[in-house]
C-alpha cells in the first residue's frame, strides 16, 4: 500500500526567545526539528509498510530549507520525499495549508500509485491547531480518524481499517474503509533508530521539489495569504499581572508556623475553600465509620 505522511518542520520552541524591546520573535539561530507529533505518524506508517509492503512517501510544505526534515525522515526509512515550496504558499492558514497539501497528495497518487492512507501528526507545536489533518481528509473525501492510539487491523483486500481512537471519556474502536486520513496520538509508538544504510541513502537521495504548478494545485488564489480566510491582526506579549505574590512568613519562623500562616491566609482570602475542606473531611470521616 502507498502511504503518505505529512510532516512539518518547526522551530524548536524550547529555544525561542522574544526580543525584550521590539517584542518580536528572535528566530535567528533557533534550530528546527520535525514536529515531534509527526514522528508518531511516520513510525506508524513505516510499521504498516514493513508489515504489508508498499511505500511511504513523506510530504512537507515549507521553505526550501524544510528539505532537512525530509532528509531526516528518509534516514528513518521513508522511501520517498516531496517538498512543496512556492512563494504562493507563504502565509497559509489551516484552510490554505490543507488545500495545498491535498492537491499535492493527489499528484503523489497519480505519480507513484494510489494512496491508501494519509498520516498526519496530532498537531504542530508552532501552529497547534490540530486542524490540518481533518482539513486534508475533508478536501480529499477520505474517511477521517483522528487521535488514533492504535491501528488494530488493516485489510488491504477488503479495504478496511480498524483503529482505537481516543475519545472523550474513553476509547472508541472504529472501523472504516480505505482511503483514510489518520492522525496519531503521541506516545502511540516509539520512533526507530534509522539504519546506517538508510542514513547513507538519505544523504544522497533526490528530493522531489514541487512548486504550485508542478504539484498540480488547481488554483493558486486558494493558497497562501490569499487563500486564508483568517488574518493575524496583532501579535503581542501577555500582560504581566500588576501585583506580585504576597510572601508568607517572617524570618525565623519554623516550617510548622509557616504552614499554619499559609493555611490561615488561604482561608481568609477565599470564601469557600475552608468550608469545602471541612465538608470533605467530614465525608472522609463518614467513610471510616
Amino acid at each position, binding site marked *: 500500500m502507498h502511504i503518505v505522511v505529512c510532516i512539518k518542520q518547526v522551530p524548536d*520552541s524550547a529555544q525561542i526567545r522574544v526580543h525584550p524591546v521590539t517584542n518580536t520573535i528572535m528566530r535567528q539561530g533557533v534550530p528546527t526539528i520535525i514536529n515531534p507529533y509527526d514522528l508518531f505518524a511516520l513510525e506508524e506508517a513505516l510499521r504498516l509498510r514493513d508489515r504489508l509492503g508498499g511505500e511511504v512517501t513523506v510530504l512537507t510544505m515549507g521553505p526550501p530549507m524544510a528539505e532537512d526534515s525530509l532528509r531526516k525522515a528518509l534516514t528513518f526509512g521513508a522511501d520517498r520525499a516531496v517538498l512543496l515550496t512556492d512563494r504562493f504558499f507563504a*502565509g497559509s492558514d489551516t*484552510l490554505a495549508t490543507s488545500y495545498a497539501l491535498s492537491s499535492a497528495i493527489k499528484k503523489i497518487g497519480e505519480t507513484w500509485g494510489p494512496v491508501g492512507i494519509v498520516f498526519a501528526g496530532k498537531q504542530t507545536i508552532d501552529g497547534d491547531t490540530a486542524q490540518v489533518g481533518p482539513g486534508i481528509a*475533508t478536501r480529499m473525501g477520505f474517511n477521517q480518524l483522528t487521535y488514533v492510539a492504535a491501528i488494530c487491523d488493516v485489510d488491504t483486500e477488503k479495504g478496511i481499517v480498524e483503529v482505537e481512537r481516543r475519545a472523550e471519556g*474513553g476509547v472508541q474502536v*472504529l472501523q472504516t474503509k480505505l482511503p483514510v486520513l489518520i492522525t496519531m496520538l503521541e506516545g502511540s509508538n516509539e520512533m526507530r533508530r534509522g539504519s546506517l544504510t538508510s542514513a547513507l541513502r538519505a544523504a544522497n537521495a533526490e528530493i522531489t521539489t514541487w512548486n504550485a504548478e508542478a504539484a498540480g494545485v488547481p488554483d493558486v488564489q486558494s493558497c497562501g495569504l490569499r487563500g486564508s480566510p483568517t*488574518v493575524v491582526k496583532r501579535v503581542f506579549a501577555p500582560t504581566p499581572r500588576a501585583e506580585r505574590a504576597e510572601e508568607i512568613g517572617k524570618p525565623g519562623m519554623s516550617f510548622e508556623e509557616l504552614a499554619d500562616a499559609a493555611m490561615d491566609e488561604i482561608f481568609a482570602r477565599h470564601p469557600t475553600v475552608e468550608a469545602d*475542606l471541612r465538608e470533605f473531611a467530614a465525608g472522609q470521616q463518614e467513610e471510616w465509620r
Partner: protein
Amino acid sequence: MTDAPQKKPQPAGGRAGMRKELPEHFKAYRHVWVFIEYEHGAIHPVSLELLGEGRKLADKLGVELAGLLVGGDREELLAAAGECWEHGADLTYLIADPILEHYRNQPYTKALTDLVNTFKPEILLLGATTLGRDLAGSVATTLATGLTADCTELAIDDERSLAATRPTFGGSLLCTIHTLNFRPQMATVRPRVMAMPQREAGRTGRVVEHPLDMREEDIVTKVLRFIADRDSNEVQLAYADIVVAGGLGLRSAENFQLVKDLARVLGAEYGGSRPLVQKGWITSDRQIGQTGKTIRPKLYIAAGISGAIQHRVGVEGADMILAINTDPNAPILDFAHLAIVADALEVLPALTRAFSRRLSVNRLAG
C-alpha cells in the same frame, strides 16, 4: 521581570489590517452559536462555559445565542436544551437521529454544515476537546471558512468582527486573529479557559428542530465498541477544586510523593510541570500547562515550579495560587497570589500536617 507591559502592536505581513467589504451573501449571517457537546448522557462542561462567553458576544452584537444539540435520543436532547437555556441560550437547534447516537465525524459534520447553511450564524464556537477538534476542522473546511483554534479570549471589534486571541510560539506570545470575508467565524476554546456562567434556574427558550436526512448506509465509519476510561483521573484534573502540583524543584520522583500526600489530605488532584512527564515521574494526563491541562481550581499549590509561560497559561484561571519556591525571583511569583519562599521538601510535609491537624480538630469538635 517587572518591565512595563510590552503591548506595541506589531504589523503582521500581507493583508493584515486590510479590510475588504464582506461579500453580500454573508451579510445576512446573524447570531452566535455554540455547539453543545452531548455524550454519554451529559453536556460537556466546556459547552456551558462557551454559552457563558457566547452570551457576552451575542449581547455585544445585539443578537441571539443558540446552542446546537445533536444526538440520538430526542427526549434526552430536549432535557439538555433546558440546561442550555439556563446557561444563557435563547434557543436551541436540535437534530435527533439514531445515527447521531455516538460521535462520528461524517454525520456530525453534515448536521452542523446543514444547520449553518440553513440558519446562517455569524459566529460558531466549539470546545477544543478531541471531539470538538475532530469536528471543527471538517466543518470549517466543508464551509471553506476561517477557524481559530484554542482561543483564550474572544471579543467583538468595532466592525462586528470576532477578534479571537490565542497563544502562539509555544505560548510566549499571543496573537489576535480575524476571519474577514467569510462566515461563520469559527473558533475553538479549550475546557476551563472561560468561566462557567451562573445557572439561572427556570430560564427558558425555544427549540428549532431540523432533520438529518441521512441513512446509516451512507456512513462508512462504524463504532464497534466504546471502552470507557476506568481511571477517570484524566477528566478530574481539569475540574478539580484544589490542585497540588510539583516541578523539577522537587529533585526526584520519590520526593513527588510529598505532593501526593498533601493532595490526599485536601481531597485534591495532583499534577506537575512538563519536565516531570518527560522524566516519567508523572503520566502525561497529569501535565498542567499549554500542552497539558488547563485548570481553573479554587486553590492551586505549585511546589518547585518556576512558572514558565507555558505553565502559566494553564493555571492563570485559578482563584488563588500558592507558590512554594526557594528562589524569590522565580517567575511564578509574578502571577501567584501567595508565596512561601522556602524548601518545598520541608514546606509540603508541614502543610500536610497543618491541614490534617486543622481538619481533624474540626472532626472531633463536630
